[in-house]
């Protein structure tokens, strides 16, 4: 067994070794991220069988919780950690084929992965804030690393709002710490019944805003379209596939594990619905495909939050499973969309829908990839998205929210409208042909194939998601496995 703490340590080490390697040879830095993520992946996979019912505890400095800094990994976090490494690995492979960037870019990238993995693995609330800061700051850098003004603008907006969000998050931690005297998640969770209601409520509102920025909830998500649009395509992938998923993880962990249910559930519920509808409507009128995808991303995140709040209303392992399925579908589908969109525009950063005309017909492989992403996101059968969407609807039906079901179906129609418009546009008339390398295509094909294969045979993914959901649901198990018999 290799300790998962190495994931963090190694990534950190490799990230800071990049400048040194850069001195040795200018060709080396691009190869560091794939190496790091691959090793991480290996470490995590070897740990799969060690993660049992509750959470696996990894302590540092030989101290036991609730005092020390520690990692607490259950199946839910492991799933997200693996997801992050997989997508990180694929993306870093993708970077190999791109023109070489400044070495600081690779550093930021690795730090980003580090932050994300840290968040999903840590068992300490303050630690999670530290990792969140690492994640956010590196993301600002990554978003702003694009070549044009838009990137800077997006990065700036993201930073402004992200900073406020994380400070409110910190405030929430402080409030909890004041009333419990501990920062260990499991411990706080255990002490939760003893905290006065007003403190609970206040801290949960602070967390809601802090995390709400990250998961792009309705009034807090104004940065998202600009950041997605401004960032380079791969960074957009990272935003939608890694960073926002981390936000979802955080939301689930804090609200479900620590609070044992959503406080202000109704607010989140309605906010999530509003997020979804507003984002889809905004996407409907969008002529810029990338911004459209950004809005759609926001909408999907709204859907995820919606399903979490539905779970909070009526606990059912199936609903959580659905949330995970949705997250997976969105991570792969949207990632694929951003990547292939970049190639379809020939990396010209001109995303106007009119200029994409015929691009899919001229580049059938890219067209296929983009179409796969779209079809999976809108939940067409034989793609993985179908199962996640069906599960979503089943969950909502189980929660007996038939009007919501009808509303969602209506909005799905809107979603289909703009997506179908793009698809149709891609395949009409004659477009420009672009040359793309083998590596990017194979990376994208991996994304696409995973969507199709698991669409045709969703059994294994269901199983994994179900296990992860079960472990997230077993709050007492989590607490007892961390704190022992305390």
């Amino acid at each position, binding site marked *: 067994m290799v300790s998962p703490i190495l994931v963090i340590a190694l990534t950190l080490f490799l990230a800071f070794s990049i400048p040194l390697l850069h001195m040795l040879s200018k060709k080396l830095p691009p190869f560091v991220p794939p190496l790091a993520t691959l090793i991480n992946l290996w470490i995590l996979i070897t740990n799969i069988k060690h993660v049992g019912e509750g959470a696996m505890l990894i302590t540092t400095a030989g101290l036991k919780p609730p005092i020390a800094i520690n990692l607490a990994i259950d199946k839910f976090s492991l799933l997200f950690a693996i997801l992050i490494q997989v997508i990180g690995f694929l993306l870093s492979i993708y970077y190999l084929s791109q023109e070489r960037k400044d070495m600081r870019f690779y550093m930021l990238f690795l730090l980003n992965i580090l932050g994300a993995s840290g968040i999903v693995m840590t068992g300490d609330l303050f630690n999670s804030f530290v990792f969140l800061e690492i994640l956010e700051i590196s993301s600002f850098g990554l978003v702003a690393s694009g070549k044009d003004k838009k990137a800077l603008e997006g990065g700036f907006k993201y930073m402004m709002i992200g900073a406020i*969000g994380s400070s409110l998050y910190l405030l929430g931690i402080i409030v909890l710490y004041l009333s419990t005297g501990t920062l260990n998640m499991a411990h706080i969770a255990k002490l939760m019944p003893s905290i006065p209601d007003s403190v609970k409520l206040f801290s949960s509102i602070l967390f809601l805003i802090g995390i709400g920025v990250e998961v792009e909830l309705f*009034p807090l998500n104004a940065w998202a379209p600009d950041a997605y649009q401004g960032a380079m395509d791969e960074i957009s992938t990272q935003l939608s596939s890694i960073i926002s998923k981390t936000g979802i993880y955080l939301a689930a962990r804090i609200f479900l594990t620590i609070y044992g249910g959503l406080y202000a559930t109704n607010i989140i519920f309605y906010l999530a619905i509003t997020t979804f*509808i507003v984002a889809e*409507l905004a996407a409907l009128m969008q002529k810029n495909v990338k911004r459209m995808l950004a809005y759609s991303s926001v909408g999907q995140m709204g859907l995820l939050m919606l399903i979490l709040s539905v779970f909070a209303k009526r606990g059912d392992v199936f609903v959580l499973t659905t949330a995970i399925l949705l997250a997976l579908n969105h991570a792969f589908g949207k990632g694929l969309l951003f990547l292939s969109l970049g190639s379809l525009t020939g990396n010209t950063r001109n995303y106007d829908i009119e200029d994409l005309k015929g691009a899919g017909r001229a580049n059938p492989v890219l067209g296929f990839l983009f179409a796969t992403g779209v079809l999976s996101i809108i939940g067409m059968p034989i793609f993985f998205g179908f*199962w996640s969407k*069906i599960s979503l609807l089943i969950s909502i039906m189980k929660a007996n929210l038939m009007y919501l079901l009808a509303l969602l179906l209506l909005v799905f129609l809107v979603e289909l409208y703009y997506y179908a418009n793009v698809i149709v546009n891609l395949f009409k008339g004659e477009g420009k042909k672009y040359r793309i390398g083998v590596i990017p295509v194979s990376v994208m094909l991996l994304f696409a194939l995973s969507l199709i294969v698991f669409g045709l*045979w969703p059994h294994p993914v269901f*199983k994994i998601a179900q296990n992860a959901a079960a472990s997230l649901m077993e709050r007492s198990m989590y607490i007892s496995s961390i704190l022992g018999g305390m």
Partner: protein
Amino acid sequence: MAMFLLLLIIGLTGLLAFILGPIKVLRNIISLIGAIGGLLYFVFKIRPGQAYALNIKIYNVHFGTGMSALSIFFGIILLGLFLIFLIASFHEDNDGAYYMFSFFSLLGALGVLFAKDLISFFFFFETMSLFSFLIVLKGNGETSHRSAFKYVMWSAFGAYAFLLGTFLKVNYTHSVMITDISYLGGNIKLWILILLLTPFMVKTALMPFHLWAPGAYTDSKDTYTVFLSGGLSKIGVFGYFIALFNVFSQIAVLYPWLLKVFAYIGAITASLAGIYAFMQDDAKKLLAYSSISQLGYVAVGFGVYSHFSVVAALFHALGHAVFESLLFLVVAGVYYRTKTHDLRKMGGLIKKMPLSFIGLLFGIIATSGIPPTIGFPSKWLLYEAIILKNDLFLVSLVFFASITAFLYSYKLIHSIFLGKLHKEHEHIKEAPFGYGFGIVVLLIPLFVLGTNPGIVVKPIDYIVRFYLKPDLAYNLTNMTTPLGHVNFPAIGITMTLLFTLSFIIYLIFGKSYRAAQEDNYTATEWIDKDFGLHYGGEFYGFMRKAFGKPLTWSFEKILNACLKVVSFLGEIARGFYMGDARVYLFYIILFFAIIVYIMGGKL
């Protein structure tokens, strides 16, 4: 298991066809083997009452033919038409993906036939819609993207309505299987029924839901239209049957008015689509409207809801599969040679493409419902059924629709085959083998079933008898209803005899010689050889004056108004994200303030 294997065969063949895409010969052979194998497997292995459940963790996908022999009835239509489409499509310039998509759409359609639970029904229905959408998208028309877009939107509209209905049903009955819901209390069962019916109304293009059909039929590749119109629309018919009989068996008792509405929608669709059809100048568009019109009869048959009206509806569905495919196939063959669908640019092709002409001739005869072809028995049954249901206005409307059939049929055959041959078509040949094969094959059931409808009425009756009290007496050649009686071969034999007689009269008198193309009575004026004598454009132009306004009515206008509202909402939503960083900060502060205000009491 057999059903699952069949789907697997079809799917794998599609995949192979895609992989072998560049090697044309091999690809064609593989797909042919797959299609023929599928048909044979279907005929020999699939039996009523088989069932199979496929477990994918959360759902069990239930396959089965237990519903009735209906699945088998439609399955044979689908696979047969697919084979015909496939053979003809080899003449077109298609890539591997095209074949994969078409195989997958077939797979979806077959899956729908086999599905026993509503979610797998939806799964396969969506699969079918998706891949037929992709094929329409690959079509050769200038506007194929627009049509494909409409197609997918309408399909999705229907599918989502179906999904909502499904979940309502599951919510109230706690069963995902296709089971009866008529015992449910309240009006919820009505909503479920209507929602479940929506996709089939879309698929068969009933009037408010028909807007996708003309475009999709026109702009998909010619040979695929054969399958799309003849084959896939049958899924809609199948769906009606399932929804009306398996899901809601008590409809005639509980909501007779709904049936009436349904029947009238069908009749109005048949009439209006007929009128639109004869105003078209594009061969495929004309046929598309004709297809819509013909499927209107099917809806009428279901709406009348008596034993032999349903028999008529199913028989007409079969007939539609035969003659509409025949018509589309002929037009496809003509397009293959002339590269046009425009009725104004063709004419006189009878001299060059006699087999196609024969195909089209009998196709339109069947479409118009003239005996002794396959179009007649169903229409006859339908009329009698409606009169027995005491609805004389409905029967008049249906009759009106069948008159419009004469109009568009004649326009079609005249503009393509009769009249003056165009100069640029002087050297074209008969349509190649694939088309000819399909035409000949389709002509067989056209006549055999037209004179011996008992062959098919027997299995249909066996299906329908289970649900409705039988009051139709029939054998191979005769049918008797409480109103009347027909001996189908008698009509055929009489006509043949009298034709022989008239032909003899024609032969014994006088000689005739062949007039040259330009030898016409033109008020004795000399005309140039290339002079456009062909009367193709504005064929029923004067009807614009007679009908006036109704021809300009369109459901599309209502739809556009709805879209405007949605876009307005979209503009508002987009406006939210148009600020700069300060505005966004303001949002957060405002949000914080509001939440604290709302929650303030609890703090």
